[in-house]
C-alpha cells in the first residue's frame, strides 16, 4: 500500500546526494581522523595508533558512564515535568492555555550556557538568591541532581510540545470510546491515550536524550566544580588543551555516536512495534472537559514550572545585564542601562553579530526543513530498502557534538585540491548548522508522516488525484505544522549556536554565540548578558509571529478538509 504511492524520479537521488554532502562526507572525515592521526596534514601514517590507549583508559569509562547517567537523568526529569502538563494542556480546558505554551517556549530560546550562568549567578554563595533571602543552594547546584535540574528545565519543552500535540491529535475521541466501555479517566489515559502517543513521545524523549549527551556548556561549567566529566567535555579537552589531540576527540565522538545510535534504534523499535495512524483527516477539536476542583493545583503547577524554567533564568540574565558591576550586587545604585547602551551603540559589533546569526538561522531553517521533508517523504512513502539507511544517516549528527562536526567540516572543505569551497565564508556555518540540526526536522516530519493514515492518500488517488497533487493537498497540509515547528527549532538553535561556530566561523565574523562568549572571556559579563537578553527577545518574537501564522494555516487547512 505505502510503497506504490511515491512519485518516482529525481527526489530520491537528489535527497541522497544532499545528505551525502551535508552529513556523510564530514563524518567520513571524522572517521578518517579517528583512524589516521595525521590526516589533517594529508597523511595516512600510523593507522589505529590511538585506539587502544583512548578506549582502554579509565577516563573513557568514567566519561561514558557519566554521559549515560546524564542522558537518562535528564530524560526522566524532563518527562516528569512535561508529560503531566502536556496531558492537562491537551485534554482539559486550561485557562490561559496559549500563554502557558508561550511561556514554555522561552526556555528553549535561552541558550543553555547562558541559563547555566544565570543559575550560577543566582544560586552560588553570595548569589542573587542569597542577596535576596540569605540562603544559597550551591551544594545542590554543583551536583549531579543540579546539572540534571538545569538541563531538564531547558529541554522539557521538547517533550511538552510533542506530547501535547500528540495527545490532542489522538484527542479525547479514542479515550472517550474506552470511557464508554467503563474505563475511568486515569485508566483511559494510561491504556489508550498514552500508548497511542508513543511514537511522538519516544521521538521527543530520544531528542532530549541526544541533546543532553551532546550538550557542552552546562556539564562543562557545573561539572567542573565537582569533577563530573562527560564525553563531550573530554572531547573539548582533547581538542583545546595542550597537547591538541584531534584523533582522540574523533574517537570519543564515535563513542558518543554509538550511544546515540543505540538509543535511536531503541526508539525505532518502540515506535514501529504497532500501528499508530491516528490522524483520520479530522483536526482535533479544542478540549471541552473541565478540570473541576483540580483547576487551582493545575494552574499552580503550570505557574511553578514556568517560573523555574523561564522567570528565574530571565531575571538573573536581566539583573546581570543591568548591573554596573558584578561585585556591586543587587543594589539600586548599581543598576543602569549602560550595558545595553554599549551594545546598542554597536561599538563592539554586537548588532552585526545578531544580524549575521539571525540571517544564518533563517537560511539554515529553510534548508534543513526542505531536506527534512524530502527525507521523511522518501523514507516513509518510498520503497522500504534504502529508506532506513537514509533516515539513520540523517540522524547521525544528533550524536555528534558541534565541535566535532566543525572539525569534520574543516578537514573536508579545506582540502587544497578543491577548486571552490565554502570554507572561510558564511556558507560553512550554514553547512554546519544544517548538519548539526537536520535530525530535528527529520524526526518531527517522520513522526508526523507516521501519524497520517495512508488511507487518506489512497482515497485521494482513488478519486483521481495525481501523486504530486495528493502530496500537495493531503499530506503537506497535515504535516506542515510539524515541519514548521521543527524549522523554528532549527532557527532558534542555529541563531545561538556556540560550540561549532567558535571553531569554524570564517575569519572576521562574529555570531551571537561567539560574541557573547568573547564578552565573557574578557570579563564583560554584563555586556554579554545584555546581548543574550536582546537575542532571547528577538528569537522568541520571530517564532511567535510564525506560530500565529501556523494557526491560521491550520484553520484554513481544516476549512479545506471540511469542503473536501
Amino acid at each position, binding site marked *: 500500500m505505502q510503497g506504490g504511492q511515491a512519485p518516482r524520479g529525481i527526489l530520491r537521488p537528489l535527497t541522497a546526494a544532499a545528505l551525502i554532502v551535508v552529513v556523510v562526507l564530514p563524518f567520513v572525515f571524522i572517521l578518517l581522523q579517528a583512524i589516521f592521526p595525521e590526516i589533517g596534514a594529508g597523511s595516512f601514517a600510523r593507522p589505529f595508533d590511538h585506539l587502544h590507549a583512548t578506549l582502554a583508559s579509565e577516563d573513557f569509562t568514567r566519561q561514558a558512564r557519566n554521559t549515560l547517567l546524564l542522558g537518562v537523568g535528564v530524560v526522566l526529569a524532563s518527562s516528569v515535568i512535561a508529560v503531566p502538563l502536556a496531558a492537562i494542556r491537551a485534554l482539559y480546558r486550561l485557562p490561559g492555555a496559549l500563554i502557558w505554551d508561550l511561556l514554555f517556549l522561552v526556555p528553549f530560546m535561552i541558550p543553555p550556557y547562558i541559563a547555566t550562568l544565570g543559575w550560577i549567578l543566582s544560586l552560588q554563595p553570595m548569589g542573587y538568591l542569597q542577596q535576596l533571602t540569605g540562603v544559597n543552594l550551591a551544594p545542590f547546584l554543583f551536583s549531579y541532581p543540579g546539572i540534571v535540574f538545569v538541563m531538564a528545565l531547558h529541554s522539557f519543552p521538547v517533550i511538552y510540545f510533542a506530547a501535547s500535540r500528540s495527545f490532542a491529535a489522538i484527542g479525547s475521541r479514542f479515550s472517550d470510546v474506552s470511557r464508554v466501555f467503563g474505563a475511568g479517566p486515569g485508566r483511559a489515559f494510561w491504556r489508550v491515550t498514552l500508548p497511542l502517543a508513543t511514537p511522538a513521545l519516544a521521538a521527543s524523549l530520544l531528542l532530549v536524550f541526544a541533546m543532553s549527551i551532546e550538550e557542552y556548556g552546562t556539564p562543562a561549567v557545573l561539572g567542573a566544580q565537582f569533577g563530573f566529566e562527560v564525553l563531550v567535555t573530554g572531547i573539548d579537552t582533547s581538542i583545546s588543551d595542550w597537547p591538541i589531540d584531534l584523533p582522540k576527540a574523533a574517537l570519543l565522538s564515535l563513542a558518543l555516536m554509538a550511544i546515540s545510535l543505540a538509543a535511536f534504534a531503541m526508539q525505532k523499535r518502540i515506535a514501529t512495534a504497532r500501528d499508530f495512524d491516528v490522524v483520520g483527516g479530522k483536526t482535533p477539536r479544542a478540549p471541552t472537559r473541565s478540570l473541576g476542583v483540580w483547576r487551582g493545583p493545575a494552574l499552580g503547577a503550570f505557574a511553578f514550572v514556568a517560573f523555574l524554567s523561564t522567570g528565574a533564568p530571565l531575571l538573573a540574565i536581566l539583573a546581570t545585564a543591568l548591573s554596573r558591576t558584578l561585585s556591586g550586587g543587587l543594589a539600586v545604585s548599581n543598576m543602569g542601562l549602560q550595558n545595553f547602551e554599549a551594545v546598542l551603540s554597536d561599538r563592539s559589533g554586537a548588532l552585526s553579530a545578531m544580524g549575521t546569526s539571525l540571517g544564518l538561522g533563517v537560511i539554515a531553517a529553510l534548508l534543513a526543513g526542505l531536506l527534512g521533508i524530502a527525507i521523511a517523504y522518501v523514507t516513509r512513502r518510498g520503497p522500504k530498502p534504502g529508506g532506513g539507511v537514509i533516515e539513520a544517516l540523517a540522524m547521525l549528527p544528533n550524536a555528534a557534538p558541534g565541535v566535532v562536526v566543525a572539525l569534520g567540516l574543516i578537514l573536508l572543505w579545506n582540502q587544497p585540491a578543491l577548486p*571552490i569551497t565554502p570554507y572561510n565564508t558564511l556558507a560553512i556555518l550554514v553547512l554546519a548548522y544544517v548538519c548539526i540540526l537536520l535530525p530535528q526536522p527529520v524526526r518531527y516530519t517522520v513522526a508526523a508522516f507516521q501519524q497520517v493514515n495512508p488511507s487518506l492518500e489512497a482515497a485521494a488517488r482513488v478519486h483521481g488525484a495525481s501523486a504530486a497533487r495528493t502530496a500537495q493537498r493531503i499530506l503537506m497540509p497535515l504535516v506542515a505544522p510539524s515541519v514548521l515547528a521543527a524549522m523554528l527549532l532549527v532557527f532558534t538553535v542555529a541563531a545561538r549556536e556556540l560550540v561549532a561556530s567558535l571553531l569554524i566561523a570564517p575569519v572576521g565574523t562574529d555570531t551571537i554565540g561567539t560574541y557573547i562568549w568573547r564578552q565573557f572571556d574578557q570579563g564583560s559579563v554584563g555586556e554579554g548578558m545584555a546581548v543574550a537578553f536582546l537575542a532571547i527577545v528577538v528569537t522568541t518574537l520571530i517564532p511567535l509571529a510564525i506560530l500565529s501564522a501556523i494557526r491560521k494555516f491550520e484553520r484554513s487547512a481544516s476549512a479545506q478538509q471540511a469542503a473536501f
Partner: protein
Amino acid sequence: MKTTLRSGLLALTLSLMGVSAQADVTVYTAGPAGLAKALAVDFTAQSGIKVNLYQATTGKVMARLKAEESNPQADVLISASWDTATSFAKQGLLLPYTSPNAAKVPDFLKTDTAVAQGAAALAIAWNPKSGTPKPEDWSDLAKPAYKSMVTMPDPAQSGSAFELVAALSGAGQDALFGDLASNGALVAGANKAALNPVLQGAKAAVFGAVDYIALGAKAKGEAIDVIFPKSGTVVAPRPMMILKSTKNAEDAKKFIDFVLSEKGQEEVAKTYLMPARTDIKALRPTITELNLLPGDDAVYAKRGAILDSFAKAFGK
C-alpha cells in the same frame, strides 16, 4: 535594528556567493578580542592592508591550525602561551623574522622566530568585600581564613597556571598544593571561569589569576584587588609568530612591525597587559617592578609529572 538585519543579510548573501573579500593578512590570535580588533583596525588605517581576524582561546586557535594543516590559512599567529613559540619553532613551522621595532624589546621576550606582543603576570585576585584579610603571599591562601574561599584555574587547562605550578614546585613549594587542597580550594576550568565567582563574592580570591583581566575589571569599578605575591610570580609573555606556510610574508612582517610600533604597543598597554617594549609606559607594574620566581625552560618536558603530582595533591 532593521538596517543591521538588512546589512547582515546582504553580507550573508555576498559571502554565500563566495564573494568574500580576500584579505591581505590573516591573523589567528588568542584574546583579548578588543585588543585584536583595535590592532587590526589601526593597522589597516595606517597601511591600507586588510586584516582578517580569527580570535578564540589559545586552545581553539591551535585546534583550528591543526585541522587546517593540509591547507594552512593563517599568516600571523598570536598565542597566550610562550610554549607555542618554542614548540612551533622546534617543529620548523615558523618564519624567522626580527622586526626593526623589536630593538626595544628585552632579549628574553624575543627569539629568531617569535617576539612578544606583550605579557601578563599571574597574581592573586582578591575581593576586598569578601570579609577575608588581604592576602600577601601564595601561602596565605592556604590559611583557615580562606577555607573554601579560594579558586584556581586548572593547570591542565591553562598554560599560565601550569607555569605557576611548575615554578612554585621548582621553588620547593610543593607542599603548598596539598595545603590548598585540604583548605577546600577549588580547581576548576580555564582562566575566565575562576574570576566571576570572586567578583560576586562566592569565593574570596583567585590563586594565579591572569592579571590584566582582573585589572581591567577593577578599572570598570569591580571590587577586586590584584596582589602580586611577595615570594614572586611568573610572567606569561604572548608570542607573535609568522607561519612558514604564509603566502604573504611581507604583509605579515608589516603587521608584526605595527604591533611593535609605539601606537601598537600603546594599544597593548591599554588592555593592562605589559607592553613588550620597555620604552612604552605601562598602566600597571612591569617585569622590572615584579618579583619573579626562578624560571626553568625544561618544565614542559616534565609537564606530565608535574600535573600528576598536582592532581594527586588535590586528590583527583
